[in-house]
């Protein structure tokens, strides 16, 4: 037995189960996803074809639609989530510990359920029938009726609305914790100068929360890139005329319904690059960040 192994045997033994599972089911699969994206892999086999899959994707109108829908969903939903989380957390801050705990739990409770289940409820709310709840509510103020998930123009809107109308409980919890740890002196100084509540919030609170905001931006963006269950359930996996198709939905159907594994892997690589780009951007802006 080599000396190193005898000395460090226990350490390697402690790491072994997790690390070997990680190598087999995460590390090698990521590498293989890249390899498959350069192959014509399908149910009947495949060979190396260079960047042909990516060329196919660049010209495929359905993939472009999926990319566009995913980006649009992400931009709108993430912006709404950040603003909602920030405003709600700011509003519960003055309420004292006990109430803060109550509200954090209240806003987080709807999020313990699965994406499938949540999407089923929204499908029911946005169903195009006269007994659909969204249509009734909007009808009361003279709007509609809308076809929602039954129409290629309105299906994506219904999917986006379903996400925007959910208070982002995770963000509320993080912002709320961050606000509680802000230094009181700055606010006292602002009070001396006679600043109003909005000025204090906009000039002190919001800038000081920048690290939390950046962190949430990255997490929410990467999560939104992965949108799948919502469209799978609400619009039967893509909606009329692919109105709600997204990248992950298209990966799923391309690979597991049509057996074009190579092409689907190329899409997965695009998704991977998008996620890494967002993470890198965050690191950069954190490094150039002015510390308060």
């Amino acid at each position: 037995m080599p000396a190193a192994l005898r000395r460090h045997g226990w350490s390697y033994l402690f790491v072994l189960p997790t690390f070997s599972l990680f190598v087999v089911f995460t590390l090698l699969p990521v590498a293989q996803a890249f390899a498959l994206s350069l192959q014509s892999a399908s149910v009947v086999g495949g060979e190396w074809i260079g960047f042909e899959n990516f060329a196919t994707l660049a010209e495929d109108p359905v993939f472009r639609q999926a990319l566009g829908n995913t980006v649009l969903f992400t931009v709108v939903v993430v912006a709404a989530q950040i603003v909602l989380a920030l405003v709600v957390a700011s509003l519960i801050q003055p309420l004292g510990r006990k109430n803060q705990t109550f509200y954090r739990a209240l806003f987080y409770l709807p999020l313990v359920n699965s994406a499938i289940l949540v999407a089923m409820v929204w499908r029911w709310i946005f169903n195009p029938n006269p007994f659909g709840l969204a249509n009734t509510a909007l009808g009361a103020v003279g709007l509609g009726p809308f076809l929602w998930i039954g129409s290629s123009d309105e299906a994506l809107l219904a999917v986006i609305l379903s996400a925007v109308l959910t208070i982002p409980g995770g963000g509320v919890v993080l912002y709320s914790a961050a606000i509680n740890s802000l230094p009181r002196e700055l606010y006292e100084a602002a009070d001396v100068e006679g600043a109003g509540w909005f000025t204090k919030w906009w000039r002190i609170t919001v800038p000081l929360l920048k690290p939390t905001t950046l962190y949430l931006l990255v997490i929410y963006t990467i999560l939104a890139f992965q949108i799948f269950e919502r469209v799978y359930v609400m619009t039967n996996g893509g909606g009329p005329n692919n109105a709600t198709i997204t990248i992950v939905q298209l990966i799923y159907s391309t690979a597991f319904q049509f057996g074009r594994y190579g092409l689907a892997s190329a899409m997965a690589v695009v998704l991977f690059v998008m996620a890494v780009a967002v993470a890198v951007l965050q690191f950069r802006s954190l490094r150039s960040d002015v510390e308060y």
Partner: protein
Amino acid sequence: MLLVAGLLSLFPLYWLLLTSLSPAQYVVKVPPEVVPRELTFTNYQRLFETTPIVRWLVNTVVIAGVITGFHLLFDSMAGYAFAKRRFPGRDVMFWLVVSTLTVPAQVTLIPVFFILRTVGLLDTYPGVILPGLADVFGVFLMKQFIQTLPSELEQAARLDGASEWQVYRRIILPLSRPALAVLAIFTFQRYWNAFIFPLVILRDPAKYPVQVGLATLQGEFNTDFGMLMTGAAVAAIPMIAVFFLFQRYFIEGIRVGGVKG
């Protein structure tokens, strides 16, 4: 105003429960009734009689439970080694693990499917469980926590002649209880709600976890919203109960890096 916002965000859950408890004629009533007139368990009776929902729930408890158990053991072991022990390759290994934290899981979906097919684990419980053991959030969580524990107790135990395993088992593990609780809740919730991996890996509806089962109900009962909402309610209630019991750990889990909504 906040209370109103809170109630609005709870509304979809309320609407789900209300629909599941409403007689069929109320479900399609125009306009819909937001306050119940009449409640019934007919939908629940039909659901339990015509679908394998109980089987799906049992499958989910088994799959999520086994994955959680292994994570508690393996992640605390690895977290301990990364936090407290010195060995060649430690930093490279930990760096590799952490660098995959932001990789979307769907990137590995097709390769994992191929691996499971090669070793004949498609459509089996181990096929769903094994890939679930590879996610590394727990290693990160345990390492961060164990780092904060004082090293004197370990040293004292070693001087008393404890083996390395005993140091982990009798010193580290008991002291890590708060982090283990967070990890348990976080992991169980994650795999209770997992969808795309089991959807791809399992074929036999008798083996489905409840989320995949729910999605097939969607095909079967299409516009029978009473039935669909009842299925959703049955899947929601256990998780909501877990939340009320262990609320503190859910909130703590978000703060240590588990934001998902």
